[in-house]
């Protein structure tokens, strides 16, 4: 049953030190900034963060890293033109990095949500990122065995939720949200807008409410809010 939280702090009650947190977004698109800000305010430390990137600029995920709350980050592409916070922590030996090919990251998170124990995967065979991993040739093709990535907590940004927790996303901000929502003990979602149950066509629901524990409305920035009001 999905709970509608009054604000991001209420939505993030009970995060423990040492938690593994799945954080949606591809760069800033779909990054749940208000939830990350609330995570910073919880003061939870020693976190493992799973996200495609390692923060951009000084806000959102980058701010969480700068606050020293993250012990390890699991991501596909940490280094970007604006990842100076991560870069400095990494070079100072203050954060652990596990690089995972982007497709493996997505599929391993899906596997956690789908009850798959492990899967043989074609990506990374013969590369340094498969070193030490079990391999197998199946039907003449080589595969690497990959394991699920589960979270204690998933932070996701969606566009619209109904009161049952059903979610719609917006354009390429969808990215990791739908798989991360399935793979955490507790999934918290920030949305631009909340509507009544029945207001979303059942044919177009992207994330069914069964995967959503808490929803909190964080109205979009001015530009988006105007766009939303227009249509």
């Amino acid at each position: 049953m999905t709970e509608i939280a009054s604000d991001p702090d209420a939505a993030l009650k009970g995060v423990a030190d040492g938690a593994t947190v799945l954080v949606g977004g591809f760069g800033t698109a779909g990054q749940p900034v208000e939830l990350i800000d609330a995570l910073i305010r919880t003061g939870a430390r020693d976190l493992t963060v799973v996200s495609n990137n390692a923060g951009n600029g000084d806000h959102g995920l980058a701010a969480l890293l700068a606050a020293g709350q993250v012990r390890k980050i699991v991501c596909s592409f940490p280094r970007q033109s604006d990842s100076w916070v991560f870069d400095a922590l990494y070079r100072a030996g203050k954060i652990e990095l596990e690089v995972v090919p982007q497709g493996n990251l997505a599929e391993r998170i899906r596997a956690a949500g789908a009850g798959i124990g492990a899967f043989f995967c074609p990506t990374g065979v013969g590369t340094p990122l498969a070193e030490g991993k079990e391999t197998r040739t199946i039907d003449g093709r080589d595969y690497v065995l990959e394991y699920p990535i589960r979270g204690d907590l998933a932070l996701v940004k969606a566009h619209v939720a109904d009161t049952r927790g059903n979610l719609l996303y917006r354009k390429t901000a969808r990215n990791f949200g739908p798989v991360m929502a399935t793979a955490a003990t507790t999934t918290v979602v920030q949305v631009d807008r909340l509507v009544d149950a029945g207001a979303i066509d059942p044919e177009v629901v992207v994330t069914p409410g069964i995967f959503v524990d808490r929803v909190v409305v964080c109205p979009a920035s001015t530009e988006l809010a105007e766009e939303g009001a227009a249509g």
Partner: protein
Amino acid sequence: MTTATIEQPDRGPLTRTELAQQIAADIPPGSYVNLGIGQPTTVADHLAPDSGVVLHTENGMLGMGRAAQGDEVDPDLVNAGKVPVTETPGAAYFHHADSFAMMRGGHLDVCVLGAFQVSGTGDLANWHTGEPDAIPAVGGAMDLAIGAKDVFVMMTLFDKQGRAKLVPSCTYPLTGVGCVSRVYTDVATFDLTPDGVVVTATFGTTVEELRSRLDVPLLAG
């Protein structure tokens, strides 16, 4: 979970309707629930309208409503038993892999299944009698058996020949191993716990009498 056994020796066994009511009453409000084909489907009729229970059907829907009637019948909207149903506000459709990922990933709170046999350790046999001329058909039974946080079995405690269906070890082909958490029958309700089988209620019988008819050690809750 153990609760004090309530013995009701002075009434008859539960009717099918009472059994469905019993199970419906034990499903926590707001749960996501899958009801198996056949008898378990009738549990839906007894869920309180304000329970917030959301029904899953493995052929691709959450928020399934009651059976369709008259003009509501739509061949594209059926439940797992292929019976036309309706949708409720807040429903969602999805494809089969997503639907079973939902089950297998442990996201359903409760599923209710029929059974040929259940073992004291929670093994379930409900898909195949194993008779040589029977055509095997498993459907989603094995996925449901391992997929919900709680698997409730709904059955008569004895078959037509009077043989117990709660057994030390299943003789029918298994559906799942150690997956059943609670057994609801016409004459008694059982919790299957790590400590053993706990009788939580009896109807028209006593724990003592059950002990004489079952080969499974029984604890009173």
